Each structure stands twice: as structure tokens, then as C-alpha cells.
């Protein structure tokens, strides 16, 4: 099959699935709907694999021309290179697993067909995003995934209790993403202005030809792109939407808000590596933001009680970690973490989804406990996910995190120490979550307990596959330490196949340092595992109710008051401004001002009509008076 045809099929299959499910979904049976959607994505995955196999440098597939400007042309064209193919593999791969999972998870939902068509649409948009060969196409996907995210977050808008909250969460996500999109747009404008092109390759080549190193425009562009990335990838200051986005169905959280969409920001930065290399100040900003995000969100996750919220903050934290890597210029490292994170975070989310499904929509971990026996497969896979994210040695998360730590250690010891704290916190809250959920006594009441059940095959199968991936994902990019021959496969793969990354070589620590690092990291992770085991399993420490929290715990539980601060600083002033303009400026001043002028003019009629007094004598008088004025006018005129 020719390359472009393959690509088109890869792209169009999810779109087709969307169309078929969207239009005919209501008439089809639920099984069929789910199968169509899943098969569409899975076929895409297979085809994407063939792309991966046949990958040969960078290839551009041009479909059609969108805009033909005097200065530039914008095409709907797609780029097939290591980066994009890798991303599409993640998207379609994880995507098809999650589709599979959803068949079971959503089986009781009214909007079944809608859900699958949205999911397919999301996959389509995401593929557009990563496969596009220019920023314009990327933007299509960028907004498209935002749109799908909105649709899926507020999917349960009809819910009796949470309907409004769900839709508000969707709105919040969309608006925050829009802020980022605005940044991206501005960046695009600047790029167009500077390069008369939005093609990655063209921009990169012209940059390579003549470097505008550190010029203001580059900084501006990089800043704009980074703002876009913070919006999409939920970094400070635009991260608060992601926890709220957990209002969506759990597969959505797994797919969009953990594995794929939120990593679009990382993808954007990796894609634009050549730009960021020219704007070191923004790279530093990326680093600082990443550090702050990873630390703060990890802290917040410590005392959350909603199983999905914890995972959401964990996601934010992990994304922060990736940004740290980007801040160091270690693009392939960041992407490696994206990959492993996609595995284990999807696993964790799906696991939590399974739990929620089994618990009949109960999400509060304070009401769980002892589920290990009731849901063995879920428990086992969840444990693997937890260990992977906590950095237990030999799990995939261990390797990818280790790479980032290594970068940090190499560049900046302070950053490293902050990362250590953040990683430790990650392990703490993940084990807290794990132990509280699966061990101890069931706290949800007998009534609920009797109903708890293990999920069906369509749900457990993806869990199993993801668990396997989470365990072995690290193989992709083993450190050079042990496996000289096959080491850094991913690094090489990416940097050879992606424009701009050829010139960037990741630092690899020397043997001693690497060993020390690994041992230290393993110690910390295992230590926390043991500590958590004692604290939460042996002692049976429970999540406290809100009233018993100490001050730092309150701080954590209330999410560092970010939402409140935003409300106070942004939302309320905007509302006040709106009320002022709408009610006072627009109505009182402008509208009534017009009325007042009109009334003023017309009410002089009350005066002017009195001139017409009704007495003939006065009429004659005024006529004479007018005559006198005429003559006086003349006299004045000749005398002047």
C-alpha cells in the first residue's frame, strides 16, 4: 500500500467510525457500535504499525491546499517521521485498548453511541495533531482534541446531581485550553510573519540556514508555544482544569487526560525543538514551570480522596516532570516518559475505572478498602501500575524517571533535589491510594459490598495488556549502563527520525553516577513502599475526614487554593467587569444617553409650542419682530 494511502486510511478510519456511529449509532446495537469504533481504531493501529515498520526518514504527504496566500501556502499535508509515527502508535494503540475497555464500562449508558463517536472523533483529531506537517494542521488537531475533550468531560450533562458540575468542568477545560490556543495562535502568527511558512521542515531549515539566535521573535514564538503547551498539558498556571476534567467518564480520563491529549503540549515542544533551542530563556522557563508543577501537584495529590482526582494530580505532576526534561533540552527523554506514562497512567485510570464500575460509581477512596479480594485482576494490574509510577526498579516508570533525574543531576543539582522530593511524594500518594483502596476493610457499607464485582473481560483484557506494557515498557530505552548493545534504542530512534533532534544529544551519565543515581532512586521508592505498607496497611491508617486535617493537609486537600485564587483574581473581576459594562456602561450610559438626547430634543416641543400663543396680535407682533430682525441683520451685515 502506498504511504499516502495508508496515512489517509489511518486518519479516515476513526473519522469514518465517528460518522457511522454518529449518524446511525442510534439504530445499531450497542455491541455493534462498540465494535465498529474499536475496530476502526485498532485497524488504524495496525496500519500505523506498518508505517512504523516502513519508516524511512521524513516523508511529507500533501493532500490538498487550504490557503493560497501571496506570501505563503498552507497545505493540508502530513509528515511521517519517527516522532509522529510514534505518537500515532501510542494514540491508536492505547486508544484501541481504551475503546475495548469502554465497551464494558459504558455498557449501561444511554449515550453509548455518542460516546464512541466522540472517542473516534478524538482519535481522529489527535492523529491530525501529531501527523500534521505544519502548525496549521496541528492547530486543527489541537482545537479538535480540545473540542472532544469538552464533549467528553461534559458527557454526563444530564446527570441529576452532577450534570451542571460536569458541564461546568467541560467548560472550564475548554476555556483554559482556549487560553493556551490563543497563545498558540499568536505564536503561529509570529511564525508566519517571520518565516512565511508554517511547515516544520521549512521553518527548521530556514532557521538552520541563518540563525536568529535569541532574537526577540524567537523568544516570543517560543513563549507563545509554551503557553499553548501549558494549557493543553495542564501546567501551572493553566492546570486546574485537569482535575475537574475527571468529571468525564473514566475511559476518557484514561485516554485523553492521561495518555494522549495532555501530552500534546510535550509533543508540540518536541516538535518545535529547533525554536526552543534558540530561545534559552524560555527553555529555562519551561524548566521552572515544570518543576513547580510537578512538586505542587504532587503535594496536592497527597490528601485528595477522590480516586480519579489523585490520579489527575498525579498526571499533572508527571507532565511537569516531562516539562522538566524538556527544559533541559532532553526531548527524547521527555517523550520516553510520555510513552511509559501513557502505559501506566492509562492502566491506573482504567483500573480506577474498573473499581468505580465495580463500586457503582463510587469514587471516594474513604469508602473503599479491601477490594483486592473482590476484584483480583483489577487489584493486580493496579498494583503494577502503582509500582511503575512510583519508580520501583525495573518497572517502566523507573527507567523513564531515571533518565529525567539523570538530566537534572547533570544540569542542576537544585532541580534534582526538587525532583527527588516530587518523586517521593508521587510514591507516597500512589501507595496511599493503593493501600486505601485495595486493602483493609471495606468501608462502603454492606449493602454496597454485596454488589461489588470484578469487571468483565472487555475491561480486564486491556488492563492486562497495559500492565504488561507498564512492566516492560522500560525496555524501549534501557540505560547504556547494562545493555550496551540495545541501549538507548528510543533515543536513537527518535533523534534519527525527527527533524532537529539529530543535533541534540542527551547527556548520559558516567557509570558511577548512573549507578548511584539508580540506587538512590530505588532506595527511595522501595523505602516509601515499605513505609506506606506499614502506615496504611499494617496500622490501617485511614483517610481522615476533612475536619481532622492538620494545616498542611488542609492545604493539600484544598488544592493550594488555586481555584479560589483564580476566582478571586480573574473570574470575579471579569464578572464585575461584565456587569459593569453590561448594566451600567451599556444601558445606563450609552443606551439611556441616546434616549436622553432624543427626549431632550423632543421635549423642547413643550417650550416651542407655547410660542404659538393663539393670539393674532402676538402673531402680528412676531411678524414685525421678524421683519425687524431681517433689517437688523442687514444693518449688521453692512456695518461689519
Amino acid at each position: 500500500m502506498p504511504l499516502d494511502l495508508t496515512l489517509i486510511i489511518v486518519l479516515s478510519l476513526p473519522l469514518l467510525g465517528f460518522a457511522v456511529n454518529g449518524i446511525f449509532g442510534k439504530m445499531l446495537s450497542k455491541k455493534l457500535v462498540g465494535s465498529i469504533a474499536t475496530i476502526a481504531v485498532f485497524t488504524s493501529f495496525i496500519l500505523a504499525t506498518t508505517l512504523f515498520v516502513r519508516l524511512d526518514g521524513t516523508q511529507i504527504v500533501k493532500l490538498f491546499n487550504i490557503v493560497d496566500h501571496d506570501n505563503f501556502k498552507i497545505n493540508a499535508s502530513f509528515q511521517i517521521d519517527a516522532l509522529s509515527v510514534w505518537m500515532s502508535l501510542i494514540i491508536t494503540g492505547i486508544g484501541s485498548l481504551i475503546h475495548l475497555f469502554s465497551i464494558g464500562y459504558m455498557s449501561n449508558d444511554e449515550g453509548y453511541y455518542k460516546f464512541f463517536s466522540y472517542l473516534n472523533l478524538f482519535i481522529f483529531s489527535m492523529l491530525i495533531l501529531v501527523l500534521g506537517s505544519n502548525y496549521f494542521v496541528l492547530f486543527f488537531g489541537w482545537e479538535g482534541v480540545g473540542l472532544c475533550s469538552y464533549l467528553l468531560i461534559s458527557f454526563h450533562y444530564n446527570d441529576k446531581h452532577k450534570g451542571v458540575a460536569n458541564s461546568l468542568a467541560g467548560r472550564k477545560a475548554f476555556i483554559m485550553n482556549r487560553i493556551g490556543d490563543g497563545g498558540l495562535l499568536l505564536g503561529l502568527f509570529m511564525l508566519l510573519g517571520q518565516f512565511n511558512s508554517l511547515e516544520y521542515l521549512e521553518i527548521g531549515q530556514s532557521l538552520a540556514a541563518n540563525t536568529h539566535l535569541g532574537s526577540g521573535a524567537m523568544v516570543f514564538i517560543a513563549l507563545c508555544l509554551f503557553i499553548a503547551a501549558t494549557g493543553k498539558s495542564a501546567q501551572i498556571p493553566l492546570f486546574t482544569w485537569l482535575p475537574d476534567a475527571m468529571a468525564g467518564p473514566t475511559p476518557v480520563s484514561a485516554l485523553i487526560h492521561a495518555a494522549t491529549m495532555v501530552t500534546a503540549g510535550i509533543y508540540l515542544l518536541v516538535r518545535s525543538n529547533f525554536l526552543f533551542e534558540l530561545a534559552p530563556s524560555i527553555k529555562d522557563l519551561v524548566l521552572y514551570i515544570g518543576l513547580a508543577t510537578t512538586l505542587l501537584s504532587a503535594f496536592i495529590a497527597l490528601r485528595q480522596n477522590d480516586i480519579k482526582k489523585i490520579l489527575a494530580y498525579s498526571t499533572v505532576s508527571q507532565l511537569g516532570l516531562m516539562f522538566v526534561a524538556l527544559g533541559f533540552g532532553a526531548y527524547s527523554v521527555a517523550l520516553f516518559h510520555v510513552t511509559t506514562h501513557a502505559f501506566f497512567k492509562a492502566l491506573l485510570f482504567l483500573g480506577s475505572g474498573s473499581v468505580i464500575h465495580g463500586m457503582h460509581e463510587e469514587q471516594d477512596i474513604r469508602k473503599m478498602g479491601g477490594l483486592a479480594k473482590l476484584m483480583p485482576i483489577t487489584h493486580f494490574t493496579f498494583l503494577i501500575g502503582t509500582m511503575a509510577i512510583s519508580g520501583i526498579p525495573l518497572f517502566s516508570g523507573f527507567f523513564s524517571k531515571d533518565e529525567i533525574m539523570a538530566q537534572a543531576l547533570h544540569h542542576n543539582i537544585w532541580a534534582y533535589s526538587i525532583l527527588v522530593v516530587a518523586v517521593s511524594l508521587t510514591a507516597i500518594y500512589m501507595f496511599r491510594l493503593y493501600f486505601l483502596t485495595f486493602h483493609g476493610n471495606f468501608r462502603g457499607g454492606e449493602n454496597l459490598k454485596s454488589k461489588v464485582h470484578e469487571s468483565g473481560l472487555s475491561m480486564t483484557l486491556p488492563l492486562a495488556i497495559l500492565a504488561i506494557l507498564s512492566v516492560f515498557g522500560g525496555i524501549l530505552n534501557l540505560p547504556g549502563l547494562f545493555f550496551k548493545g540495545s541501549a538507548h534504542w528510543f533515543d536513537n530512534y527518535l533523534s534519527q527520525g525527527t527533524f532537529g533532534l539529530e543535533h541534540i544529544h542527551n547527556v548520559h551519565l558516567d557509570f558511577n553516577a548512573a549507578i548511584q543515581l539508580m540506587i538512590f532512586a530505588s532506595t527511595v521508592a522501595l523505602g516509601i513502599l515499605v513505609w506506606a505498607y506499614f502506615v496504611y496497611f499494617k496500622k490501617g491508617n485511614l483517610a481522615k475526614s476533612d475536619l481532622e486535617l492538620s494545616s498542611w493537609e488542609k492545604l493539600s486537600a484544598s488544592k493550594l487554593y488555586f481555584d479560589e485564587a483564580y476566582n478571586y483574581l480573574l473570574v470575579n473581576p471579569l464578572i464585575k467587569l461584565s456587569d459593569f459594562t453590561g448594566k451600567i456602561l451599556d444601558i445606563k450610559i450609552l443606551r439611556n444617553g441616546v434616549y436622553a438626547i432624543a427626549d431632550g430634543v423632543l421635549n423642547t416641543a413643550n417650550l416651542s409650542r407655547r410660542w404659538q400663543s393663539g393670539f393674532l396680535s402676538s402673531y402680528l407682533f412676531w411678524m414685525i419682530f421678524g421683519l425687524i430682525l431681517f433689517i437688523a441683520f442687514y444693518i449688521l451685515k453692512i456695518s461689519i
Partner: protein
Amino acid sequence: MQVASNIGSSLDFYLFVSIALFAIGAIGAMTRKNMIVLLMCIELMLNAVNLMLVTFSTFYGNGDAQIFVFFTMVVAAAEATVGLSIIIMAYRNLKSIDIDMYNQLKN
């Protein structure tokens, strides 16, 4: 006619008289409330015009103006006829020829 040939020096005065007459007629029209007197005042104004026309006619030695005066008189007569009949009709309606009584129409 010897008289006329020396009249030149009086013409300015006649003009003055006619202007004054016009003003007096106007004052009368404004002050008097009796409609008939009012009409008379207007006749006075017309006569002022006539006087002025004759004066100019004498000045230019041109008969046109005197013809004009003739027509003015014709018009004045017609106006007086119609005016008086209007006054009579109005009197029938309001039983008064006081002009101030006629102020139903106003504002």
C-alpha cells in the same frame, strides 16, 4: 403745472411720511383688538405703500407706479370685501369681534 415741478424737495419727506404711516398702521394692527379697526389699520399700511409708490412715481416720472397704486386699491377693495364678510361670519359664530376671543387654536 408749476406745482409739480418744484415738488422734488418734498419727496424725501413723503417717503418719511409713508414709512411712518406704515409703522403706525403696524402698531395699530398689533394693538387694536377690534377686528374692523384692525382691518382699517391694514388699509392704513396699504395707503402708506400707495403714498410711497406715488412718491417714487413722481421721482422717476414714470406712470407704472401709479397704475400699480390703482391695482393696489383694487386689491385693497377686494380684500376689504372679503375681510368684512369674514368678520361678519366670525361674528355670527362667536358673537364678538374682539380678536382676543379668537384663540381656541393654539400651541
